[in-house]
């Protein structure tokens, strides 16, 4: 199967409730599929490491649900095998890892470093491609931890941003705890939730307790970020400090994924849903919204997307972008469709239907 994935192809690593798939295409018009890998297993996140274009990582239960989580690794196209060890908490902590939610490649010059965000919320770092793990104490046993509350999806650490300019600068998102930031490689963390609403709390702007759904860097490259929250969409400038709510112009303040353009600054895509109590596209029309000015204005795109009787949603890892020009944007739904745009989000085509519910989509170039 590995030979079937041509070098230079765009590869979409798609994690679903019943296994992982690799969709690949040299021209982004005609797509082929390899998989399912880890069949029957809930693959919450699967990536092709963009640093080498050929190592696949996936977080899934070991063989089946009862045996605990495992980090799987493979050369692209071959069946993933469990790494030597899964992330786990220190003895005596009375905590145990139940699920791997997110896998993030480390800095470009540390090709063996990966991060794992897990449930219950914690961050682990591996410097040997997932065979051993470092429990990042200052965050994982943060003084506020005893009061952390789960969101509806669980108490999960789902967003990990590694600053390409300064690898010791990391930002993480936890539901429903908020955004934390370190500038010393994880030795100390600050809460970074100023300006973010928490409508479900008595104090609507607490220091922490916000339900962050997804974080991503703004490709401005200066540390600015986008943020999709349970209560609004936000942008934060390069100097840190308070977030600016940029939900105005969107059909709702609720959604899960957010993906930034890798080359055009202040540009990002979201897929707002009707509300937290009704997690489907507004008016039954699937739509992706794009901003090119850090959220000041948004443009809706529906051409090629289903509606007006499409009552599905997209989960937090369900959107990805490639690095081609024009940009490819990809969205997987919780009803098993995978959609692609090869013109910067202007028009869409369905790549496939009848997948199990899509839990994650990531794009990379095969090398």
């Amino acid at each position: 199967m590995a030979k079937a994935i041509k070098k230079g192809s765009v590869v979409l690593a798609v994690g679903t409730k019943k296994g992982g798939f690799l969709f690949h295409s040299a021209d982004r018009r005609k797509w082929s599929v390899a998989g399912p890998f880890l069949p029957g297993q809930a693959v919450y996140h699967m990536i092709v490491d963009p640093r080498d274009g050929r190592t696949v990582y996936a977080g899934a239960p070991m063989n089946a649900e009862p045996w605990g989580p495992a980090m799987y690794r493979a050369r692209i196209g071959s069946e993933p095998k469990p790494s030597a060890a899964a992330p786990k908490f220190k003895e005596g902590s009375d905590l145990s890892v139940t699920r791997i939610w997110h896998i993030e490649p480390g800095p470009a010059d540390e090709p063996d470093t990966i991060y794992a965000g897990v449930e219950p919320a914690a961050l682990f770092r591996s410097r040997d491609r997932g065979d051993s793990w470092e429990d990042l104490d200052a965050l994982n046993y943060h003084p506020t931890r005893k009061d952390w509350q789960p969101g509806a999806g669980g108490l999960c650490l789902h967003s990990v941003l590694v600053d390409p300019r300064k690898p010791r600068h990391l930002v993480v998102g936890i539901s429903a705890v908020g955004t934390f930031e370190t500038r010393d490689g994880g030795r100390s963390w600050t809460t970074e939730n100023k300006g973010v609403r928490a409508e479900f709390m008595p104090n609507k702007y607490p220091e922490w307790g916000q339900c962050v759904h997804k974080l991503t860097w703004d490709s401005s490259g200066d540390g600015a970020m986008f943020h999709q929250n349970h209560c609004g969409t936000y942008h934060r400038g390069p100097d840190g400090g308070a977030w600016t709510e940029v939900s105005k112009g969107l059909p709702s303040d609720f959604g899960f994924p957010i993906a930034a353009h890798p080359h055009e600054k202040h540009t990002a895509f979201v897929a707002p849903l009707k509300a937290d109590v009704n997690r489907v596209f507004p008016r039954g029309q699937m739509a992706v919204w794009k901003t090119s000015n850090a959220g000041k204005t948004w443009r809706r795109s529906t051409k090629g997307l289903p509606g007006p009787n499409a009552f599905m949603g997209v989960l937090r890892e369900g959107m990805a972008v490639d690095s081609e020009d024009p940009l490819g944007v990809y969205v997987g739904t919780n009803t098993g469709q995978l959609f692609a745009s090869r013109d910067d989000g202007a028009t869409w085509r369905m790549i496939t239907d009848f997948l199990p519910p899509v839990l994650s989509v990531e794009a990379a170039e095969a090398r």
Partner: protein
Amino acid sequence: MRASPEELARAGVLVRIPPALRTFTQGQDEVVAEAGNARGLLDALEAMFPGIRDRVVDEAGRRRQYVNIFVNDELTRDPLPNVRLAPGDIVHILPSVAGG
């Protein structure tokens, strides 16, 4: 010729390995270990087959929610150190009825 379970178990506790964990035991479906209780048994298995213990119990030492341990066909519910074992006992490690 393969020894009978009874013959094998005279040397210790006979452990039946479920299919999902046979990647750790190089495909063996049963192994013999010496241990006086269930926690000791898992330690002995871990020494022989690194990584297998974490699949039965979590890092806090708790039996995973949907994993059952039977001793001589009886389901154990006690904390693992209290589950006494003796040579000749047969232990099954099995996933409970689950899935979806």
